[in-house]
């Protein structure tokens, strides 16, 4: 009995002491698992990749320090540079298409959903379904649908008199990247939709009521009140799109078009370039050093984009919100 009491007193004493000194143990305990797992399995491997990019592989498997030599090769050797700039350019187009199609579409759907129509929940759930699917499935399905052989797309277009519009989009240089981008939009539009929808819901009702009393139409309310208020969310959506464009877009292109980004490199992006450089394919033997160089360039490009966003866009947005 006394033991327990003593323990309790002791505990409260330590507690008091901890609070006084600002107590560091529990902070460490809270942070330790995350910091440990993240550092060991995420940051350390990435640093290792950066380190690899500073070496040149020898035929016998050893490596020689060459500083920024690999970066010079990637950017200035004609054969490498043409692939690098092509991939980067394709990535930017991909980003652009997502910005003008996916995000406005997400905004539109979210705006409609926020009017709380009947079956709103059902629409929301179903529209989110593609986002849940693996690219293995998405790639296979869309290839089938657009396939000239199976003829689903062609058949459906003919049925409404648009058969002449059909083309083997995935196989044509001019349209392959757009087609892949739109498939990606189809898959991921659920994410901006959800984020924007949630932001719209969090706008205080009083604000909207006041606007209505002032006689603003629904449309005007949307433009003049809601949209400015959700600008920060749109900013986040934009930056997530930018990052996803370098990270998750690879999976889709890889599963639909393969690692060479056909036809004629028109769907080759940084991800596919990195993948085949790093790991090789068929007779091309992987070069982990050049691969790591491409990977590091990707990292720097993402970093530049995020920095621009944080310094420029977000700061202005937040001020606007105030």
């Amino acid at each position, binding site marked *: 009995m006394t033991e327990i009491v003593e323990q309790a007193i002791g505990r409260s004493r330590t507690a008091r002491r901890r609070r006084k000194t600002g107590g560091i143990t529990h902070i460490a305990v809270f942070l330790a698992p995350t910091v440990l797992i993240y550092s060991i399995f995420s940051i350390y491997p990435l640093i290792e990749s950066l380190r690899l990019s500073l070496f040149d592989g020898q*035929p*016998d*498997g050893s490596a020689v320090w060459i500083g920024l030599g690999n970066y010079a090769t990637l950017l200035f050797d*004609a*054969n*490498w540079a043409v692939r690098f700039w092509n991939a980067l350019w394709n990535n930017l187009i991909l980003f652009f298409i997502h910005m003008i199609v996916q995000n406005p579409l997400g905004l539109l759907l979210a705006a409609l959903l926020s009017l709380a129509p009947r079956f709103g929940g059902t629409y929301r759930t179903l529209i989110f379904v593609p986002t849940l699917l693996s690219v293995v499935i998405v790639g296979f399905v869309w*290839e089938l649908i*657009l*396939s*000239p*052989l*199976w003829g689903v797309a*062609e058949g459906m277009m003919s049925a409404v008199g648009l058969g002449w519009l*059909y*083309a*083997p*989009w*995935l*196989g*044509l*240089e001019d349209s392959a990247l757009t087609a892949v981008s739109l498939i990606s939009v189809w898959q991921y539009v659920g994410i901006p939709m959800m984020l924007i929808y949630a932001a719209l819901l969090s706008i205080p009702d009083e604000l909207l009521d006041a606007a209505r009393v002032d006689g603003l139409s629904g449309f005007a309310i949307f433009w003049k009140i809601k949209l400015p208020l959700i600008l920060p969310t749109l900013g986040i959506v934009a930056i997530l799109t930018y990052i996803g464009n370098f990270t998750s877009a690879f999976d889709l292109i890889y599963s639909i078009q*393969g*690692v*060479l980004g*056909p*036809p*004629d*490199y028109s769907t080759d992006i940084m991800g596919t370039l990195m*993948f085949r450089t*790093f*790991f*090789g*394919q*068929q*007779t*091309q*033997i*992987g070069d*982990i050093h050049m691969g790591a160089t491409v990977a590091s360039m990707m990292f720097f490009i993402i970093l530049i984009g995020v920095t621009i966003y944080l310094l420029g866009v977000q700061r202005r947005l937040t001020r606007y919100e105030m």
Partner: protein
Amino acid sequence: MKHIMMKTTATAALCLAAGGALAQEVTLTIESWRAEDQAIWDDTLIPAFEESHPDINLEFTPTAPTEYNAALNARLEGGTAGDLITCRSFDGSLPLFQRGQLADISDLEGLSNFPDFAKAAWSTDDGESTFCVPMASVIHGFIYNADAFDELGLEEPQTVEEFFAVLDAIKADGTYIPLAMGSADQWEAATMAYTNIGPNYWKGEEGRQALIEGEAKFTDEEFVAPYEQMARWSDYMGSAYQAQSYSDSQNLFTLGRAAIYPAGSWEITGFSDQAFFEMGAFPPPVPAEGDTCYISDHTDIGIGMNADTDHPEAARTFLEWVASAEFAALYTNALPGFFSLSNAEFEVENPLAQEFISFREECESTVRVASQILSRGEPNTWNTMWVNSANVLNDTMTPQEAAADLQQGLESWYEPQQD
């Protein structure tokens, strides 16, 4: 913790004691890109081996072909690759040997069962060391719907002009798509078109060696001509062939909607199962009547030993078995279309496979033109060949441009081509 330690020591002691009398059972895993062969290994090859070698267990663990190189590379780097490694030919595996990831197996007795050209695909340039046992080659040509040919009164074409006459006849009739070929996946354009019909123009090995020695260029007539023929193919391919994938082409042919399939012999197994009509095969037509014909008889698949394996003895035992006549017969018949490279005599039962193997008697064999030495640099010539061949079929590059681009890429790093 202590308990476990003691137990392990005890087991170890037991093993040591028994080691002399009782050989320990080992399990070897096989890395491969032939996911389709799972059943054949599980049901035929592995039981046959384990019967004569009860102390060695085998596990066949394939990775899809598109991921094979990447996954294998990562596993080799990480030290987790299987004991036995299926080798792509020539420069697909040589670097693995140079890095010390594939073991030197030059002293394997069974290697004497193979001709030199077969071993060359898995040996160093000087022929000193061999690192994989040759398993099989694949032969290219054309598979056709024999029922359709009968129906339209057509015969196997011998020359290019006859070939196009046949295509015209099929096109005029309209029932069938003349050529089951697409350009979406690119590699078929290179393997089933360019290096399939090309050897007839560049005279097989002669042209290939000339390129390696720097005496010929891709811009020479004999390397441009196959592209010129391919440019004529697109009129006979299905509508929207630009988005037609490899499996689309397979389906198009086996569902009886197309008449001729530019093929590799590996299709035989699947086609024999899927197609409900008679099939025949002919080698690539020659430019002019009486020309010697050349076929792409590509040393495609071998198997070697991970230098890091824990069971080198068992792995060598298995490789000896792969080099045996027993394996040659089992493999070739389980997988008609993969032709053993062994000197051993064996019977091929599948009629379509028999036709393909008969090409070897009429024609000279060669391997894919970019597979040896020419794809060692960046840009990788074989990759460029994929892309440019598809471009020619797509009409987005002229034959001359495709060839010039290949030559420019090769010259940029390959010294013998640089003067």
